[in-house]
């Protein structure tokens, strides 16, 4: 994978799907299936939050996304133009088992090695330590 993939996308589902496809291509087969799944899931959650909450699904709004790979690590950063997400009040709260929404932060906590929001809450940085890929002979 190249070092960095940076795009500015429209705030809509089609753009999310297109960027996720590009992300999978960028990752290639250089990470384990588990890391590939985790990376895509983290990216999707960050993008859906940015599009639906940050941009209120206004297709004219734009979301900035950067994914960066390095030795043994993956960074995903997503910035939206919205007022920000109150992550502090949600961080330690697990959703009710039968709730139909509210699992985004739980997914961040489960799949990212480190999560950082900016002060406003409209930018998130997700780090994941990657497993060592063992080639099968």
């Amino acid at each position: 994978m190249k070092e960095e993939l940076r795009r500015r996308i429209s705030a809509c589902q089609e753009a999310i799907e297109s960027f996720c496809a590009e992300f999978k291509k960028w990752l290639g087969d250089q990470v384990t299936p588990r890391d590939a799944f985790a990376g895509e899931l983290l990216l999707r959650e960050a993008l859906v939050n940015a599009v639906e909450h940050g941009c209120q699904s206004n297709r004219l709004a734009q979301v900035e996304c950067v994914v960066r790979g390095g030795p043994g690590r993956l960074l995903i950063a997503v910035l939206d133009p919205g007022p920000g997400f109150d992550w502090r009040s949600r961080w330690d709260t697990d959703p009710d088992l039968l709730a139909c929404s509210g699992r985004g932060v739980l997914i961040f906590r489960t799949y990212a090695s480190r999560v950082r929001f900016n002060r406003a809450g409209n930018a998130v940085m997700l780090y994941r330590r990657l497993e060592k890929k063992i080639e099968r002979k």
Partner: protein
Amino acid sequence: MNTITSSGETITLKLDRDVVAANCSELREQLRQILATGSRALVLDFSEVRMVDSAGLGMLIAAHNSFSRSQGEISVTNCSPEILELFRSMRLHQHMKIEGTGLENE
């Protein structure tokens, strides 16, 4: 296109795409139509599903809740190891039967 087969009182829906936000409204409508048939047992075949996001998880829970209210149940089969791990970490397995492909440990 998702494929529906039925055997006795069990309906099997084989999904041909990922269970993510972009596909949820179409799948939600399909599940609503299956529930309306009076079916009480629905098997979701995930053999071609590679990704489930939080919107997809929410939709599965909503479907589970609807089927439960009608004394029905949903199960998910042929999950990839990664989806199986997601379902377990989100504790979906406490409410519905979740099965892998049987190849998880290979």
